[in-house]
């Protein structure tokens, strides 16, 4: 029986469905509770902390020689800035932790916190990119001139000539609002000090348990062996739970200091204010086109508002550098110039969020295609046909290697599914009735499962990428797979069990995948960059092949046949072409309890280890949105949303589609609803879910998915990652659709989210412009 390719119900689910999931807050029961005192202002000098003497306050002075977090890139164009664990002389954003109090319950901790007052001499903050870049602007960090933390450039020799020779040059400025990842479970940690060993068990809602161990140990100046980090059930992460946060360092410090169990469970206000944000970007994009629509060159000025500090380990370079490297996307771009800056402001720091810059650059590039097509009088499909990559492997102008994909095929398939010609007729008819329909597409490449080469190219001092898997079959024939990756809702345990089952020849129900425990799993990089199935899956496949060989040796000896003649399936080992067979369970028992008979496996027994560290692989998709815009209210309604996705071999199609659904929903949120808003003083105006608009079931339409499957050897399992594609592609399709709907009004959308208010304003301005003509 084969398991890969089946929509197997997830092994993760029964526990979660019965409310038995062990999320961090469950583990906090009985712990002493920390409450952080946070900066109420965006910029200023701390003058005093006043508290009744009976309230012990944890401050920088109390923490002693705990080291700040200082994420690094090995590049001259990057300025490292240390982030103190608790702010001492200055505060740099609203929500920055300054101190903490500890009590027996959360309510008591809040009561204590209310008795502490903080005196701060406020200063004029820099909140926006314009403010931060203005001549003479106050500096967030004295070491970062012009508030510039990274200033990267790229230029091919002939880019100027390409623009000079162009038939048509189009340009615009594209603005992306700031977004919050908003996992439904806020962050949180429980640190339990063990009096017997002196170790701390840190359970945290994290995507990266091993790196959290490294980061906390480094900050506290202790060996990593003194810490055990567990990622229990994690209620969503989307990138926000990758980075090391100062709060976790304080939690572990407090557990050691007070020799007890200490917890911090973030509330939603803290999460929206002081957890990480993303996507606050402004791109100025110029495209040079030949008369036939082929793209000659791109010139991009990429500005990213990265907030007050750099995140560990990805650094604040993650958004600008990703934007610069991946801007060409699925297109042939012969000449390219880019400048990518990360600008510090007195706002919450940025971290990776599902898609990392690519939702923004894809929206900008796809707007560029439609905008240029209109000027060149080409169909949007046609201009893309002339530019999409069709030969593989393709090395992009920035040196990124694309393995085989189906960029063109996905677009043509999506166009057939929605029947573009038929839509155009309907659109014309609707316009006569005063209804404004629009169709928009986006074609994109999603780099997934990048290994160390991809991150080394970014010159990260901490270079993630590889994944290691340890397999151990126990004497009862059950298999344990210990993985470095750390899933949080993706269904990885089920998908890996399916892969392993096929490779070894046992049932997935007999496989237990162990993750998120640094004492039990090999060092790994957790879950991000759509990597886990590609990398942990690849390592599983390699390790499984080695384990299967060992089982074949034991079976061969047991059945008096050559190991190479043994086949294993459905838990039985057969001699090929005969009816001689033995159960895998019997083999496992013998391997442990009659080991003297099996010298061939004396070194490792029934275990195997493998590491997988490939370059990475690209999945791709085309999204098409059909929308209707109500010009009276500015309301956008999504009538249809189609995805043609190529994620290579689908291990569990149901899980793949779930990832696409959720990704598209977050992309729609990015395009139409969600925006973190600060006022001029750097005060957060969107600190609740009544202000920060996460879409509900009423806003997210049915998402129609079709699959293509390009199999490449860039992924040893044939599977490509699929975690971020929905989020990357959806905003571009929506913005193009809204622009198409409003084309009769002379409106092009170059911002997101595009809210009813902004549409109403564009309609007023567009109307005014038309009146001028």
């Amino acid at each position, binding site marked *: 029986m084969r398991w890969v390719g089946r929509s197997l119900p997830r092994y993760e689910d029964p526990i979660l469905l019965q409310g038995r*999931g062990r999320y961090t807050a469950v583990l906090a029961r009985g712990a002493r509770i920390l409450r952080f005192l946070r900066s109420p202002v965006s910029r200023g000098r701390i003058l005093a902390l006043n508290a009744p003497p009976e309230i012990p306050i944890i401050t920088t002075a109390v923490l002693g020689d705990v080291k700040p977090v200082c994420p690094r890139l090995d590049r001259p164009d990057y300025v490292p800035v240390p982030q103190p664990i608790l702010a001492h002389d200055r505060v740099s954003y609203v929500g920055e932790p300054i101190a903490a109090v500890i009590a027996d319950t959360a309510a008591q901790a809040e009561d204590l916190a209310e008795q502490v007052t903080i005196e701060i001499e406020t200063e004029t903050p820099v909140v926006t990119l314009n403010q931060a870049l203005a001549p003479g602007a106050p500096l967030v960090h004295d070491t970062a001139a012009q508030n510039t933390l990274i200033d990267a450039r790229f230029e091919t020799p002939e880019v100027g000539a390409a623009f000079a020779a162009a038939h048509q040059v189009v340009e615009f400025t594209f603005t992306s609002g700031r977004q919050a990842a908003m996992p*439904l479970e806020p962050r949180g940690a429980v640190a339990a000090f063990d009096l017997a060993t002196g170790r701390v068990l840190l359970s945290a809602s994290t995507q990266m348990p091993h790196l959290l161990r490294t980061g906390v140990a480094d900050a506290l100046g202790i060996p990593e062996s003194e810490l055990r980090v567990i990622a229990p059930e994690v209620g969503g992460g989307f990138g926000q739970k990758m980075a090391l946060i100062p709060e976790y360092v304080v939690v572990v410090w407090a557990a050691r200091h007070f020799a007890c169990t200490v917890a911090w469970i973030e509330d*939603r206000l803290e999460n929206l204010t002081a957890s990480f944000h993303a996507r606050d970007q402004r791109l100025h994009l110029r495209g040079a086109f030949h008369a036939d629509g082929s793209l000659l060159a791109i010139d991009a000025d990429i500005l990213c508002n990265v907030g007050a500090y750099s995140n560990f380990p990805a650094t604040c370079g993650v958004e600008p550098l990703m934007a610069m490297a991946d801007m060409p996307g699925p297109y042939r771009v012969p000449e390219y110039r880019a400048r990518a800056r990360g600008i510090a402001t007195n706002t919450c720091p940025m971290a990776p969020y599902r898609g990392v810059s690519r939702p923004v650059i894809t929206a900008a590039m796809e707007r560029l295609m439609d905008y240029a097509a209109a000027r060149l009088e080409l169909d949007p499909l046609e201009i893309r046909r002339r530019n999409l990559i069709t030969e593989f492997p393709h090395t992009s102008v920035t040196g990124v290697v694309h393995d085989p994909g189906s960029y063109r095929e996905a677009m043509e398939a999506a166009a057939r599914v929605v029947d573009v010609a038929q839509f155009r007729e309907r659109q014309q008819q609707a316009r006569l009735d005063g209804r404004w329909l629009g169709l928009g597409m986006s074609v994109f490449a999603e780099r997934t499962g990048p290994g160390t080469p991809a991150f080394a190219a970014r010159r990260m001092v901490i270079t993630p990428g590889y994944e290691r898997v340890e397999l151990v079959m126990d004497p009862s024939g059950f298999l344990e797979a210990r993985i470095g990756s750390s899933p949080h*809702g993706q269904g990885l345990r089920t998908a890996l069990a399916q892969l392993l089952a096929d490779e070894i020849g046992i049932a997935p129900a007999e496989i237990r995948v162990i993750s998120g425990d640094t004492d039990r799993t090999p060092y790994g990089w957790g879950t991000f960059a759509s990597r886990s199935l590609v990398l942990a899956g690849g390592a599983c496949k390699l390790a499984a092949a080695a384990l299967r060989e060992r089982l074949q040796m034991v079976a061969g000896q047991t059945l008096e046949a050559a190991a190479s003649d043994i086949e294993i399936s459905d838990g039985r080992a057969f001699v090929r072409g005969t009816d001689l067979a033995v159960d895998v369970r019997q083999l496992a028992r013998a391997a442990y309890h009659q080991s003297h008979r099996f010298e061939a496996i004396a070194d490792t027994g029934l275990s195997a280890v493998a590491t997988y560290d490939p370059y990475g692989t690209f999945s791709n998709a085309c999204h098409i949105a059909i929308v209707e815009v109500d010009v009276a209210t500015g309301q956008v309604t999504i009538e249809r949303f189609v995805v043609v996705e190529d994620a290579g071999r689908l291990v569990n199609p149901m899980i793949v589609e779930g990832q696409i659904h959720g990704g598209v929903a*977050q992309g729609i949120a990015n395009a139409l609803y969600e925006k973190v808003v600060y006022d001029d003083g750097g005060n957060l105006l969107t600190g609740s879910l009544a202000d920060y608009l996460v879409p509900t079931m009423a806003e997210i339409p049915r998402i129609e998915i079709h699959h293509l499957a390009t199999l490449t050897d860039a992924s040893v399992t044939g599977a490509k990652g699929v975690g971020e594609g929905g989020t990357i592609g959806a905003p571009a399709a929506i913005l193009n659709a809204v622009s198409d709907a409003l084309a009769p009004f002379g409106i092009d959308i170059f911002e997101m989210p595009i809210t009813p208010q902004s549409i109403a304003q564009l309609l007023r301005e567009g109307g005014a412009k038309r009146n001028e003509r």
Partner: protein
Amino acid sequence: MSDRLDVTFTVNGDKRTICVEPRRSLADALRDDCGLTGTHLGCEHGVCGACTVLVDDQPVRSCLMFAVQAEAARVRTVEGLAAGDKLHPLQQAFWDHHGLQCGFCTPGFLMLAVSILERDPDIGEPRLREALSSNLCRCTGYQNILKSVLAAAAAMRK
């Protein structure tokens, strides 16, 4: 704030008396005093619905209700849905149709869906979509939640 009050209510059929501060939310009382941690807290300001429980068969944001307001009430939580090893049809449908990913919103959606289907077993998709828009999910894009509840409704009508 330290003057505690006794509150008596039934949770999933069991009569419970707990002694709580008047300010304690029902959600905190269920989680900390009754040990029923399946009810999750996502926002604590009544928007996300992760903490939805049934109080006298009505769906309630347990983060917005004081425990003392539950005096003599009949409270139902996600822990009371399955009958022993047998999952409730809604739980089974969520499993079959991938109606959950990280699982954090799931108890709230299950309880909300229980109340919707108890009130209107024949509810159609448009009204169901509107009713389920009470709660937030960040992982699934809602599609498989809708599919799961429709499937459960069909199974429960049989």
